[in-house]
């Protein structure tokens, strides 16, 4: 309790201050960092692995690894950027194990033309998400994003779901900015193409094709 008050007095709410305190062995400070980012890390891990058990393991292992390697965190980037990078690597490793496929990587299927040229050009219903109940919509969104390659869905999740910048995403994934942009475009177009079958307008003309 005393430690918490002391940190409050020092205005230690900033991420960097928490990291510095954790580096010196303050476990409460690290616990605050876990609470700050656990939801994000869980979401990212679930999106990559599509397996709740694996996602739970990724959350635990990513935070433990971050804690064990805090000394190596230089503070040149944000702690969160560094943490996501660890989590993405852990998640890809679990995906490889689960698929028994060592080739799973962020580069998989990058050259695909799938979705690059829109085939589905029928307009959607005005409020497509209202066509389905919450859980049905959730199932559609999960099924659809699961169809993307790991590289595409990881970029989409970081940029569009988590709202990170292209620059941050590039740093987290060790990709160039043009590579992030081209994966994001493909991911967005592929998702759009696949969602069209659930959301396109049923009213006459275009939707009836």
């Amino acid at each position: 309790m005393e430690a918490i008050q002391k940190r409050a007095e020092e205005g230690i709410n900033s991420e960097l201050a928490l990291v510095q305190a954790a580096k010196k062995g303050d476990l409460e400070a690290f616990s605050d960092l876990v609470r700050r980012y656990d939801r994000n890390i869980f979401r990212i891990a679930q999106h990559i692995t599509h397996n709740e058990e694996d996602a739970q393991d990724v959350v635990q292992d990513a935070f433990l690894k971050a804690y064990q390697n805090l000394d190596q965190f230089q503070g040149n980037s944000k702690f969160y950027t560094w943490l996501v990078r660890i989590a993405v690597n852990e998640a890809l490793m679990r995906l490889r194990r689960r698929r028994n496929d060592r080739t799973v990587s962020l580069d998989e299927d990058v050259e695909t033309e799938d979705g690059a040229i829109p085939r589905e050009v029928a307009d959607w219903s005005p409020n497509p998400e209202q066509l389905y109940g919450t859980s049905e919509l959730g199932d559609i969104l999960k099924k659809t994003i699961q169809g993307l390659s790991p590289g595409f869905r990881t970029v989409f999740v970081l940029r569009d779901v988590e709202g990170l910048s292209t620059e941050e995403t590039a740093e987290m994934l060790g990709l160039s900015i043009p590579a992030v942009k081209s994966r994001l475009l493909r991911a967005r177009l592929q998702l759009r193409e696949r969602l069209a079958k659930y959301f396109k307008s049923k009213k006459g003309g275009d939707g009836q094709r």
Partner: protein
Amino acid sequence: MKCKEFLQELTDYLDGKISDSLRAELDEHLHWCHECHVVMNTTKKTIEIYRDNQIYELPDDLRTRLHQAIMTKCRGAHQGKKSSH
């Protein structure tokens, strides 16, 4: 501007990361090309749907359990570090 060129700029267009002159060109294309207009609108909707409907939320009870497990492991690592010094 051709549809293919429009598509190449779609991501920056939706993210608002383009110059005014390029935006004007893209808007001009959208004005007469119905197909690109639909693709742009439905891509925008795709992003909004995924952003507004978080499909993998961490339930509170699982969050508590994970937090305890993480901190137990970190405490173990911390003790290990201290005893090795």
